[in-house]
């Protein structure tokens, strides 16, 4: 039998926004077992929330994740509204959906850039993040902030979108179509990216359902779920959009789902803007109290359904607040996808569920406890992954995706 070695990825690693510890058990090049350890970033938010008022709770959950800083508050206010049967004006619903979709575009561009980086295509990384800036500029225009927008509140939103800003927002959005098309073509048609991502890290539909996988991780496997369509909320029942699915569930399909979703997001936002331009009205029903009761709220965050449960006893604080982020369901699927893979592919497979990035590369060289053997660190894993791309380039003569120069306006 081959000697078994443990390759630690984490707890702090460039692949992960939050600290998580993956222990890859490998025999030679093959991954034979995966241990996942969590808890390095556990902040006791559910407990903390019980000591906050409903208004404060929204700000608290906004800080669960820097990227999903609309998804958590939106799910949370919907849970409070469900518990207290609080009405929301229609204009606020359109603003909620528009901000939520902008968040999806910037999150998917962030993922696309990092995924390119992990397999050695830094051009994709640089360009994807350059166009992510445009999305953040739109968010700043609407909310005043690039991240942590402070938009959601029970009963509506905190800020209206000025009608005078709408043409500029719409123009900026349209200018994103061409770059995203180029990313799509670069990824979908490039044979070298096919070689690195097709048939790698496959999650079958059956396993996706067993693990309760969510978002693009589920949809790439043909598990056709999307709470925007399945459980109508915000403005989605009034909007026309498609839910993108693929069949094979490999890294390639996960990338394709995310890229195509960005077009749908632009479509959704444009419809919201049209409605906001046409109509007026309040954006907040100004609820004064939350009656006793319990409520469930969810939102299709970029990584999948975010779930909040709130129970109120009629006071101004929740007596229980449960939060479930999509990565909680998606990360265990790595136990299926990474088995049998090579160490060089493990990097992109673990990254393919988009396990929330916030990037702290503070991984030291780990030394085996028993034999003093030097184990692989984050840089080694990146090197292995890039070397595989280089090797494929040499073998096939392919050069990888070429992105034409984008001209700044």
């Amino acid at each position: 039998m081959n000697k078994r070695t443990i390759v630690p990825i984490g707890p702090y690693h460039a692949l992960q926004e939050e600290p998580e510890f993956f222990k890859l058990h490998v025999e030679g090049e093959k991954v034979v077992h995966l241990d996942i350890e969590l808890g390095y970033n556990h902040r006791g938010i559910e407990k903390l929330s019980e000591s906050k008022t409903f208004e404060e709770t929204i700000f608290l959950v906004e800080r669960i994740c820097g990227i999903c800083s609309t998804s958590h508050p939106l799910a949370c206010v919907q849970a409070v509204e469900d518990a207290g049967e609080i009405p929301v004006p229609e204009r606020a619903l359109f603003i909620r959906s528009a901000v939520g979709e902008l968040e999806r575009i910037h999150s998917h561009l962030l993922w696309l850039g990092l995924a390119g980086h992990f397999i050695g295509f830094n051009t994709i990384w640089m360009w994807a993040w350059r166009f992510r800036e445009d999305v953040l500029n739109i968010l700043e225009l609407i909310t005043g902030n690039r991240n942590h927008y402070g938009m959601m509140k029970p009963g509506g939103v905190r800020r209206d979108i000025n009608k005078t800003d709408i043409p500029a927002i719409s123009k900026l959005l349209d200018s994103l179509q061409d770059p995203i098309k180029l990313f799509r073509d670069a990824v979908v048609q490039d044979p070298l990216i096919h070689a690195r991502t097709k048939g790698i890290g496959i999650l079958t539909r059956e396993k996706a359902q067993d693990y309760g996988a969510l978002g693009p991780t589920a949809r790439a496997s043909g598990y056709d779920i999307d709470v925007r369509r399945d459980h109508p909320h915000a403005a989605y029942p009034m909007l026309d959009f498609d839910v993108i699915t693929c069949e094979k569930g490999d890294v390639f399909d996960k990338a394709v789902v995310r890229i195509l979703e960005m077009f749908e997001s632009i479509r959704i936002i444009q419809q919201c803007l049209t409605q906001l331009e046409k109509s007026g009205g309040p954006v907040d029903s100004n609820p004064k109290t939350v009656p006793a009761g319990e409520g469930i709220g969810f939102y299709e965050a970029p990584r999948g359904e975010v779930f909040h449960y709130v129970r109120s006893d009629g006071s101004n604080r929740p007596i229980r607040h449960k939060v479930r982020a999509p990565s909680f369901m998606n990360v265990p699927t790595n136990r299926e996808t990474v088995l049998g893979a090579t160490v060089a592919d493990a990097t992109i497979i673990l990254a393919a569920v988009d396990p929330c990035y916030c990037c702290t590369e503070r991984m030291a060289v780990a030394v085996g406890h028993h034999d003093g053997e030097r184990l692989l660190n984050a840089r080694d894993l990146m090197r292995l992954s890039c070397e595989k791309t280089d090797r494929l380039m040499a073998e096939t003569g392919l050069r990888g995706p070429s992105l034409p120069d984008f001209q700044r306006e």
Partner: protein
Amino acid sequence: MDKFDIITTIQRQLGDRILAVQRKSDQRIYIEITPQSVQEASRLMLDEFAARLQIATGVDTSNGYEVMYHWALDNEGFVITLRVLLDHASAELDSIALMCPAAEWIEREMWELLGIEFNGHPDLRHLLLADDWPEGNYPMRHNHEVTT
């Protein structure tokens, strides 16, 4: 299958194991069942309705520990919450992790934070808290005292 049929099916299959049904809205139904019937009810959710376990969570109330399993029926667009009430003195339930892998982490989390024992769980150990977290110290219980 429409919502009415689903509720009728659940009532027929679970019979007297159902203690209360509350239709909160068109999208939300809360069904209280006996603690002994959690596995049977979960099997019904999975096999009959292809439901998706969104999350299960517990609340420490004055009457006991309330555990809720939130099942999403994505095709029908509503959520069925199965609720069980456990006595403070007997905080244990049968695990559903073997029939539903999604529940494995969910039960581990509830075990370490609220102290609910899950009989038959394949790997009941700390998930979020440190491995050397003191035994019997459950942060989500109301009698939990914060020590520094």
